[in-house]
Each structure stands twice: as C-alpha cells, then as structure tokens.
C-alpha cells in the first residue's frame, strides 16, 4: 500500500494543436497561450475544489492542533481561565496516579485486543477464502458486528451479558468459575472490552479476504509440486504475499485501539469502574476536559497520546520497511 498519489500524466501539451490547425507561427503562439491558460485553469479548479478542505483543515484541524499545543503549556480552566505554566502539566502528568492507571489499561487493551482480533480475523478469512457456496453469506454475517459494536446500544448489551448472574457468569460457573460477572471484577473487567473488540473481527477479515483472493494460485501449485506442507505454504507464501495487508490492518487496528472511548465510557463511566480497571486514556482526557474543565492539563494528556501513537506508527512503518513484501517491486 503506497501512500503516494497516482503519478499524473503531464498536462496535455498538445491540447492547442489538437484542434487540427497546421502549426503556423501565429497558431503555435496561440497554442502556447492556450496551454498555459489551461494549466492556469487547472490550478484555479484545483484550489476551488480544495477550498472546503483547506478552510476546514486550517480552522478545525491545524489551528486547533496548534492551539491545544499552546493550551498544554497553560493551566487553562474553562471557567477560571489560566496562565502559561511552561512544562508543569507534562511533569505533573508523570506524577499523576491516574496517568499510570490509564496507560496501563490502554496498553493492556491494545496488546490483547489487536493481536487476538487479527489472528481470529486471519484464521476465519483463510477458512472463508474458498469458492464454496455460502461464502458471501458468512462474510456478511461476520462483518455485521463491526458496524454496531462501538454503539452505545451494544455497550449496554455488553454490560448485561457480563453482569453478576448474567450469561457469562452462569456459563463460566459451570466450569468452576467463582469470580462473578466480569463487570464487577476489576481483575478481568478489561476482558469485556477485549471481547467487544474481537467481536468486530469481521472488518479486518474482509480486508484479509480480499488480499487472499489476490494471491496467485500458481504459487501454491508450484509449492505442491515441491511437496511443501500446509504450514510451509502458509509461512512462505500466504504470509509474505499478504504482508502489505497485514501491515495495514495492524496499523489501523492499533491506532484505533489507542483511542477507544464510547464503550469504555458507557461500561466504566468517568472513573473507569470498577477500581479504575476500565479507565481508558481517552476517557480520562474527556473527564479532565469536560467534567473537571481542566482543559490545559487535558491538552497535555492529549499531546502525550499523539506522541505515543506517532512513535508507535513510526516504529511500525520502520518495521514494515524490513518485513513487508510488495510483489512486483523486487528490483527497487
């Protein structure tokens, strides 16, 4: 997956000549003028079409980013206002027990949810990637949860499923579990959210499936001739051919996992109940900014998140340079 725009063809230089007039001196000059007018027109059209985005990006993206960077160096309070305090917020964050809690919960979630979800989605995608009857039905059915999982409605359902004496508690009690519903048990409550994330395995699965369909069958046939085992084919053909898609899924899922908010807020509330065990990083930012109105301090929290996600993304792109195989780019 390359992130560069398509290489555009050079602007139609012959546009003036295309009218069919013989290239006399005057018409050649006219053609030149016409071509540059065209290019000017293209420029004008380009900026006109980009105008909403340019305004939006300036006013609602870049402006706010700079502003929040500034706010993070102040003790701005929505009602009381605030002053410049230098790095005080940033040093305060690292002494804040809530920060350690939020980081622990969020990292635990990322480290558990992303790999489990992706392994499950790849496994089911490989199972599905056969031209059998019913494939489209299964694909659609597995995809559906990803559309509703992050809604408030499903978070409420989840609370019920994992409540004391609820389905999960009753089911696990049959196997000797005595920890009650996950929702009241701080040592396992995060599992609820991990399972919610795993429930949405259908979204990366659809992407894996599309990638699997593009792997040339000849590769497997050649491996069969060489007597390769199933595992060898998986390791030496499927994984390398799929690596751009794997990279894309790992990247997107990780970046999103860091930002989980809605379900965590519905399930754990402002304090990440029980006992801060669902206190996600973004929940804490929300509470600091919109319940406590400590917007300067909350901005510093937000910037720490941006830096963390930025570093993780950078590491992933670095690793991808080594690990991701792009078919057809061997001679690069």
């Amino acid at each position, binding site marked *: *997956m390359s992130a560069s*725009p398509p290489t*555009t063809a050079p602007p139609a230089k012959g*546009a003036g000549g295309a009218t069919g007039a013989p290239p006399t001196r005057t018409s050649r000059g006219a053609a030149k003028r016409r071509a540059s007018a065209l290019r000017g*027109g293209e*420029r004008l*059209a*380009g900026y006109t*079409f*980009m105008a*909403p*985005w*340019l*305004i*939006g*990006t300036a*006013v*609602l*993206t870049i402006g*706010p*980013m700079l*502003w*929040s960077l500034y*706010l993070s160096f102040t003790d701005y309070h929505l009602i009381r206002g605030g002053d410049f305090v230098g790095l005080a917020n940033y040093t305060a964050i690292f002494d804040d027990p809530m920060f350690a809690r939020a980081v622990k919960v969020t990292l635990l979630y990322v480290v558990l949810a992303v790999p489990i979800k992706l392994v499950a989605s790849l496994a*089911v995608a490989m*199972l599905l990637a056969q031209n*059998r009857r019913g494939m489209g039905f299964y694909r659609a*059915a597995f*995809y*559906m949860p990803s559309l*509703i999982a992050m*809604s*408030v*409605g499903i978070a*409420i*359902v*989840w609370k019920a*499923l994992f409540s004391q*004496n609820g*389905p999960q508690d009753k*089911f696990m009690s049959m196997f000797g579990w005595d920890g009650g519903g996950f929702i009241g048990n701080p040592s396992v409550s995060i599992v609820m959210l991990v399972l919610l994330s795993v*429930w949405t395995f259908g979204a990366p699965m*659809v*992407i894996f499936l*599309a990638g699997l369909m593009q792997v040339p069958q000849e590769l497997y046939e050649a491996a069969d001739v060489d007597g390769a085992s199933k595992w060898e084919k998986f390791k030496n053909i499927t994984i390398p051919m799929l690596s751009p898609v794997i990279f*894309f*899924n790992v990247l*997107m899922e990780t*970046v999103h996992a860091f*930002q989980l908010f*809605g379900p965590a*807020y519905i399930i754990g509330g402002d304090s990440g109940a029980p006992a801060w065990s669902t206190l996600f990083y973004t929940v804490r*930012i*929300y509470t600091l*900014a919109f319940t406590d109105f400590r*917007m300067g301090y909350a901005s510093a929290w*937000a910037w720490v998140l*941006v830096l963390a*996600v930025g570093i993780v*993304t950078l590491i992933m792109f670095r690793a991808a340079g080594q690990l991701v195989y792009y078919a057809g780019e061997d001679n690069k």
Partner: protein
Amino acid sequence: MSIKLADGRVIPRRERTTSERVRSAVWHLSLLAVLAVVLYPAVWVIAASLKGTTDIITDTSLIPDPVTWDNFRSAFGGLTGIPLWRFFWNSTVIASLSVIGIVMSCSITAYALGRLEFPGRKAMFAVVISTLLLPGQVMLIPQYLIFSELNMVNTITPLVIGKFLALDAFFVFLYIQFLRGIPRELDQAAKIDGAGHFRIFFSIMLPLMRPAIVTSAIFTFIWSWNDFMGPLIYLHEIDKFPLPRLLQSYNNSEGISNYGGMMAMTLLSLVPVVLFFLVFQKFLIKGIATSGVKG
C-alpha cells in the same frame, strides 16, 4: 445438473466424492460454530427485549417465556415525556446531513487531489493521509472552545460541519482509490472537446463515482448514527439528543429500574443500522476491501 454443449452433447456433472462432501460439511460446521458465537449477543438482545424486567439477567434462555410487549410500549414512550420517535428524528437529521456533506465535499476534494495538477497538491495529500492516523482527541478541546465562542454548543452544527469541509480523510482516501480505476482517457477526451474541470467533474466523474458514493453514504450514515462522543460533548438538552445520548441517559436513570424498556430501546436503535447493512452489504464489503487493499 449437467452441462449441455452447443452441439447437443451432454456432459454429466461429475459426482461429488465422499471426501469432498465430508470436507464441505466440516467447512460449513466450523463456520456455523463461529456464526453462533458472533450472533449470540444479537439474539440475546432480541430475547431480552421480550422478557420481563426481572427475568432478563437471570433467565439465560434465548426463548422468552412468557413473551411480553410491555418493554416496547415503555421504550416508545421515550424519556421525560419526549417520545422515542423524536430521538429517532434527531439521529436521522444528523446522519442525513452528514451523508450530504461527506458526498459533496469529499468527492470534490478527491477529484482535485487525484486528478488535477496544482502546486501544493502533494503536500495536501500528505496531510490528508496523516490525519487518517491522527488521534482526534487532540483537536477536541480547541474545537469545543471555538464552537462555544460561536454559540454553537447545543446545536448540531459542530457535529456536521466537519463533514461539509471534507475532514473525513477516510472517505477522501476511498474516493481517490476509486478514481484511480477510472481511465484518464475519459477526462482527456472531454478536455479536448473543450469541457472545463467543473464540467468534467459533474458530468463525467461524479456519475462514474456512484459506487464509491453509495459506499461512503452508507458508512457515513451508520457511523454518524452510532457516534457518541460528538453528541456527548456538544448536546446537553434532552430534546436535541440523538439515540446514543438517549440510551446513555436512559441507562443512567430509568434503565436501572426498567431494564426491559432499555433493552427494547437498545434493540430499536440498532434496527436501522442492521437494515441498512442487509440492503447494502455488497457495497459496504466491496468498499472496505478496495480502500484497504488496493494502491
């Protein structure tokens, strides 16, 4: 079934061998096992909405007995005297405006970035891609301060304005990916015939982009239907609440005593998304596959 050739000969269909049958059965059984786990929460909430409030948690059976419709009656009653349809209407307005905004703004942005040549294009494209990965939380506070300064808190403007300004990088990216598949000869031919860029966009590109537009429209509708953080920050008057905010308030107040009503309300809030999905699932899956893989 057999295959009939043009000259009248008939090739009988090869009988499936026993091992093929077994393999197919194992395939279906393993997928049905996954399906059962995946669908369990959905089936559970349907059953829960038809049970009495006291039975919902403790009675784990998926078949409600006795069936009661009281939950739906109380769900339609809404919250604090405001009927449920009002919240559906609020959600529909926000989602529809979002769809209109995304389709209009992201399509022209993608056309400019994908097809036109102008100074700064590459840098703008890079910004679009990096906002795909940028945690939105970092802009939240200043955006709130801006909208608050403009007296737009408690209106839906903050929830939809970004959609009209092409700030949803995912859709810009999806459109650009789609545009790559449309042959350039089309625009060049139109250019030679003297069509300007606006003409080319509106009469050639836009109609050809229809599949991408449908995909983005469905996604936008569903995502904005589910959006919770935006309404949580900007909407504080109950008669303006979209469904997620209603459910959250209900969950914190009525829902504690009227568990059944809350389950019915939850189920009703999910119905439009599921219906949308069932009708348009082909577009959605194709869209997610192309935006993720190609390129």
